[in-house]
């Protein structure tokens, strides 16, 4: 759950969001790990 920021980097919530929507985060004790390491 990323609440009001879930819909991406455009004008969302109180902030203007920048960057990749898929950048890794840790959430609820679990961290997203990409399938393959980025070069």
């Amino acid at each position, binding site marked *: *759950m*990323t*609440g*009001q*920021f*879930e819909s991406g980097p455009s004008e*969302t*919530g*109180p*902030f*203007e*969001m*920048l*960057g*990749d929507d898929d*950048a*890794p*985060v*840790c*959430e*609820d*004790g*679990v*961290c*997203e*790990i*990409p399938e393959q*390491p*980025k070069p």
Partner: protein
Amino acid sequence: MSVKVDIWSDIACPWCYVGKRRFEKALAQYDGDVEIEYHSFELAPDTPVDFEGSEVDFLSKHKGMPAEQTRQMLGQMTELAAAEGLAYDFDALLHTNTRLAHQVLHLAKAHGKQIELKERLLKAYFEQGHHVGRVEDLADLAAEVGLDRAEVVTALTDGTYADAVEADIDQAMEYGIGGVPFFVFDGRIGVSGAQDPSVFVGALQQAAGASQ
């Protein structure tokens, strides 16, 4: 004019340390003034201080994955961290509750030592297998960055900064922050996750441009 960067993160957060390194790369490429403040975020507040089991045990329980799959995931995270110059050691890692660590980070902020202590705690947790959930262990680590050990013990025992930790967590909820690391530039530009340094540079430049 200086750009204020507020960062919500946890200690027990592998992407927070990686994100910190990527943000630092951006800072090295940016020639303006930056003021950084870390804010508390607890990814697993129900974790006991003395978790009995390995990181594999903890994540297997949380994700419901087989232990072998969890080991592979941690191996991949270790490789990703190594690419940022970090030597994660999940075999040595002592999983714990980070609430007291956040309290001591607030004390460190009051003494202008928050950045140093944040780095020390992350390194202690991910690379050195130190316990970062108990008062005495935290006091030792805080003393290493120049904080008064006795003051740390008293503050943690008395819960001096417990409300400050709660306030940070409440602020994150108010903003809708569900995952960390989460960066806010000048209170109006948000960057979620361990982004490429170029994203942070862009956010710094955009924030600085708007504040001139």
